[in-house]
């Protein structure tokens, strides 16, 4: 092999910091920012011993957009469309977290109908996020077909959401005090038809993928994490529930009308990739249950409270936690009484979930790292914000 002078290559600050370890014969591998299984522009520096991972360090910031700065430059209303872009897969939950925080600050009450619509569209959006995750995770594991079946089902759902919100991905449907517009008349019946359809498809999902011996081999016992590790890293959502703690913001600090609904919070105690997988599959059913309850007795009345056209919340601060598809979304807004927020802090669940990856990946095979990464369900724009 020809000698190649690596000194000629442009210096890469991230890998300069990632010095080779004390032992020799290790391979430093840069996975990403363009890699099929990093789902966006995430880069992971790996130190490999053969195919075993000695160290892993994610390098973030490739699509950092400084949303928190933008929030300080815009009025409360104007920042709303940004929220759909933070996590494009569960835009509704981010909409809700921001709207909720501002509503708490300004003391705006949301009418009952608005709350029900919010619950229904957020849960629909959660299903669409989980379906996409399911397909993409299997793509990571080398199965090409499930994503098409998932998209087939997701399409019905997106049609419903399009009829309500006018868009299919980056919704900015929430306003302070309710939702942007009322739902069409056939919304409830379409939702019920969809949940029925999805429930009928779940056995197929199970037979094709969940029971598959190859998938189980790839997921069982991989990336094990106990509750304490998850807690110390701040991992939430399906990742925490996969470690055995049935913790869900919808139940723990019930916001909106979630307290009225009866739903099961799935939790699996193995703490491995399979447990996280199973939690998400069960959550599809949970979301279906919630949607059924939310739309089957949709209250009459206005969908939105009258909010002032220029919102100036009194000085103070408010947090609002929402259970997103990836975990606990927390938006903290500080107001100085002016038309623009003084400080907005966005707590992205994926950020904390990904930070566990360094711990989980150590000592596993490269293929396991892909499996772990997929099981954390990352959306890079949310992590980078």
């Amino acid at each position, binding site marked *: 092999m020809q000698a190649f002078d690596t000194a000629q290559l442009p210096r890469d*600050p*991230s890998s300069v*910091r990632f010095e080779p370890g004390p032992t020799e014969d290790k391979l430093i591998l840069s996975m990403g920012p363009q890699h099929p299984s990093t789902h966006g522009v995430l880069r992971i520096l790996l130190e490999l011993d053969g195919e075993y991972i000695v160290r892993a360090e994610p390098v*973030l*910031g490739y699509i*950092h957009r*400084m949303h*928190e*700065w933008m929030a*300080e430059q815009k009025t409360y209303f104007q920042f709303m469309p940004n929220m759909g872009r933070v996590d494009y897969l569960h835009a509704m939950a981010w909409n809700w977290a921001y709207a909720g*925080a501002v509503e*708490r600050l300004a*003391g705006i009450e949301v009418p009952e109908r608005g709350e029900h619509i919010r619950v229904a569209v957020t849960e629909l959006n959660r299903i669409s996020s989980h379906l996409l995750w399911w397909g993409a995770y299997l793509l990571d594991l080398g199965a090409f077909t499930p994503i098409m079946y998932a998209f087939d089902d997701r399409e019905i759902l997106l049609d419903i959401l399009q009829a309500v919100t006018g868009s299919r991905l980056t919704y900015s449907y929430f306003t302070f005090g309710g939702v942007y517009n009322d739902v069409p008349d056939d919304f409830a019946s379409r939702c019920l038809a969809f949940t029925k359809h999805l429930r009928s498809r779940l056995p197929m999902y199970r037979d094709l993928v969940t029971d598959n011996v190859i998938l189980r081999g790839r997921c069982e016992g991989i990336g094990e994490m106990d*509750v304490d590790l998850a*807690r*110390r*890293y*701040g*991992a*939430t959502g399906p990742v*925490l529930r996969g470690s055995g*703690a049935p*913790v869900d913001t919808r139940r*723990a*600090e*019930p916001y909106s009308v979630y307290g009225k609904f009866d739903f099961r919070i799935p939790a699996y105690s193995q703490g491995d990739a399979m447990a996280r997988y199973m939690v998400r599959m069960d959550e599809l059913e949970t979301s279906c249950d919630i949607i059924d309850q939310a739309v089957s007795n949709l209250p009459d009345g206005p969908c939105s409270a009258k909010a002032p056209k220029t919102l100036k919340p*009194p*000085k*103070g*601060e*408010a*947090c*609002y*936690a929402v259970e997103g598809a990836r975990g*606990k979304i*927390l938006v*903290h807004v*500080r*107001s*100085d*009484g002016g038309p623009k927020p*003084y*400080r907005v*802090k966005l*707590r992205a669940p994926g*950020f*904390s979930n990904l*930070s*566990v990856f360094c*711990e989980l990946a150590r000592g596993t095979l490269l293929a396991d790292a892909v499996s772990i990464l997929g099981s954390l369900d990352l959306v890079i724009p949310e992590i*980078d*914000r």
Partner: protein
Amino acid sequence: MIPAFVAKMGPVCSAPMDHAKTGMTLSVTVEAAKVVQAMEVLDAEGYLLEDVMASDLQDGFEITYHLSLLDGANRLVVRAMIPHDAPSLPTISGVYPGADWHERECFDFYGIRFEGHPNLHYLLLPEDFEGHPLVKADKARKSLADLMPLGYLVDCGLAEPEAEKPKPAAVKAVKTAKTEDA
């Protein structure tokens, strides 16, 4: 009202908050040097670290740690104030390894140095970025008294209950008294 373990954290002041109005139940202000001690107490109590937030105020950078127990509406915030000219405080990544990235993010946006942090480099910003984007201009900065409702200020001893608007001088006086106590 205020749980017993708060006393062990070495609080400068603690103020109960209304969850329905703010999403938080308790705010504990500690001295910057004592955050690790406070976090050790909370870790033993089983709190989950949600995030680390910094804000740029007139009085200095305020670091806010959001924590909550796994179950229930019990968000607790720990606050610490550090001066603009010496923005540093000890890292809590030894207690909560998840704080590592959150602290790096604060370093990115505010230039706050976390003493003892294993890897304090830019996380989200490019390596060659100059400055810290969320640091406000002097004019735009507001003091804590301008940002917090009166009830909180009273609880924290930053304002008199009767005073409609606390005078800036009074705030200063309280602040200096606080540091003298330490």
